[in-house]
């Protein structure tokens, strides 16, 4: 289902297969095989170049983060290949000892974890209701939620900051969590409703006959069956919130900002603070990258399902 899984068996063998016209199988096959091999070589070269193009920027950040401030100021990060001895963990130790970055990483966790769990919880409640409960106007309500899928967060920045100001949620962790939850919900409800709707009716009927109430049905049957969708959604939402800067910039407590905001404040003096920015940015990427590599498949399917968002 995801294209990140190897599909070598189904890949076309065109690059190696002779493409001679059927009329001249012997004379043409050699020439066309050579042509095909040349084309295959060109494809490889192109992909290697593109791969380098995609790797180099991140490599630059990574190597820069392990160089001393004077090395960073004096030469490019590629110099480490000539002099690997200049690599040092000094930037990281200094950054971690300072406490600002660790504090902001903690803020990020305190925002991301509740915002993810809340979206999963409320989203699966609502998704279940839309899939299996009877109430008047059900389909219309659901269409309303679908309509909200593409609403840009920008629409809500000013109104919600006023609203939060009025109820004392402005610049609080709870406020940021609620905002992320609200804007994560349309997609969560949409995805989970569609997934829950695929559960065989007989399964639910059987549980009801056994005397299970709606709550029991939900926790014992629907949630376990919805595992894959919930996992995909959870990863997607987790990365979304972890990586957010705009919402945190406006709604988060400026005394203990999440990592993105803390780093953004450093970017304004970009130039001689690469020794702070590079390791800081890399620390902010460690968790998303770990999640990405551990759950590629779920992430890819979440991204694909989110294509409507």
């Amino acid at each position: 289902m995801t294209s990140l899984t190897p599909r070598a068996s189904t890949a076309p063998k065109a690059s190696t297969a002779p493409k001679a016209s059927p009329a001249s199988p012997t004379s043409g096959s050699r020439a066309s095989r050579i042509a095909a091999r040349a084309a295959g070589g060109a494809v490889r070269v192109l992909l290697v170049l593109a791969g380098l193009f995609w790797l180099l920027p991140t490599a630059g950040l990574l190597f820069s983060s392990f160089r001393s401030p004077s090395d960073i100021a004096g030469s490019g990060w590629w110099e480490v290949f000539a002099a690997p001895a200049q690599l040092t963990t000094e930037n990281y130790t200094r950054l971690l000892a300072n406490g600002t970055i660790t504090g902001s990483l903690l803020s990020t966790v305190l925002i991301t974890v509740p915002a993810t769990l809340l979206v999963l919880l409320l989203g699966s409640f609502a998704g279940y209701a839309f899939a299996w409960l009877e109430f008047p106007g059900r389909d219309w309500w659901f269409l309303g939620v679908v309509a909200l899928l593409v609403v840009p967060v920008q629409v809500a920045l000013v109104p919600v900051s006023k609203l939060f100001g009025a109820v004392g949620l402005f610049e609080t962790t709870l406020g940021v969590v609620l905002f992320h939850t609200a804007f994560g919900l349309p997609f969560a409800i949409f995805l989970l409703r569609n997934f829950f709707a695929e559960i065989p009716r007989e399964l639910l009927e059987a549980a009801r006959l056994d005397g299970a109430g709606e709550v029991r049905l939900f926790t014992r049957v629907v949630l376990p069956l919805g595992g894959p969708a919930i996992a995909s959604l959870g990863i997607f939402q987790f990365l979304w919130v972890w990586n957010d800067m705009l919402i945190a910039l406006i709604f988060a407590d400026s005394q203990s900002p999440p990592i993105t905001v803390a780093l953004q404040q450093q970017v304004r003096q970009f130039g001689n603070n690469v020794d702070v920015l590079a390791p800081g940015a890399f620390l902010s990427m460690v968790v998303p990258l770990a999640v990405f590599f551990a759950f590629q498949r779920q992430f890819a399917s979440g991204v694909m399902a989110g294509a409507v968002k």
Partner: protein
Amino acid sequence: MPRTRRTDTGNTRSTTRDRKRSRAVAAGFLLPALLLLGALVVYPIGYSVQRSLFDRSGSSFVGLDNYLALVTDDSLRTAVRNNLIWLVLAPAVATVLGLLFAVLTERVRWGTAFKLVVFMPMAISMLAAGIIFRLVYEQDPDRGVANAVWVGVHDTFAEASGFPRARPLPAHPLRAAGGGAYVTKEAVRAGEPVRLPLVGVAPGRMPEEARPARDPATPPTAGATGATVTGTAWLDFTKGGGGRPNVVDPAELGLAGLRIEAVRDGKVVATATAAADGTFALPGADGAVLRLPASNFREQYDGVEWLGPSLVTPAVIGAYVWMWAGFAMVLIGAGLAAVPRELLEAARVDGANEWQVFRRITVPLLAPVLVVVLVTLMINVLKVFDLVFVIAPGSAQDDANVLALQLYRSSFGTDADLGVGSAIAVVLLLLVLPVMAVNIRRIRRETRR
């Protein structure tokens, strides 16, 4: 309907009570989500629409003035124009690259690894990507990899930058002519070999092809007849000392590649380039003054100012494509997996070449996926904020402005104008309405089934 099952055991009263109970259960399941959506998504839409019709202070009604400002105000117009550039460029480039990668990775064994590399930036924050590209785009070619590569390529293909900081000594027969050029103090004559000595070039920076200079006193090589002026341009400097000024000493090198112009009455009558041994010949230059144009002495090429006013938007779009080409690739790759292989094989057997198969079969079959990818990226691009905010330096932020950035500035900046900010928010919403309508239509069809 699950609930009607119970009617056979009870009377009508119990069914109404049942229905009420089931409604209460449904409300319990739905209410938390709907409350949040109502307060933080739906209500703000109404607020923004209403607020966009009022002025900065929010007290007086101004109608559509805030929307008009989007096309009349200079800085707002820049934002609108840049957003259009984004909208045209970014999704198209990302989709084309995604298509290319998706198709080509099927032909190599390490396609999965490649996809992982290209898809990886999707997982990181735009802020981190912004910092990454701030480093890439650093101006100094010794620090920013983009300029390092650019300058490397430039110096490989372009003419060598010549002899920066080369200059004559006062004892030399040359004087500065302004603008970085040098001219001979006196007019030159055919048959009187000209000496053009310069100093100030580090030995290591001399052109590789430079050979020991030929003394102009020795008779020149063939072809020098009539009004042809000949001479030698050389580096009048002997390593380790011992050289005499104005004399071609044995170890002194010719200024290979130095451009020389003969100027008579303000007009260039002949040009020449010094050979490896520094000799040159200028036909018809008798009585002219020789000039060494400033292009010989230009400073070293310093690369492109990526984050300057003119290139900042394409540069940030480059970072965006780096992040999102993987998204296009994965979606298109999934679409590609659904393309029947027999169709492609059949076309190949019929003699179609790879390009024809791609152009006539693969792309048309993928059209629906390509549309989804393009539309998704367009919606995404409308709202681009972080990348511009982080990559564009403060000085270039006005030139790189986009709607979402302007919205942030108008709403939370030092001279905030909530009227304009809300108008931008409403415009962003209006622009995604067609997609909203398509989504609703599709879901309605599906739920009716």
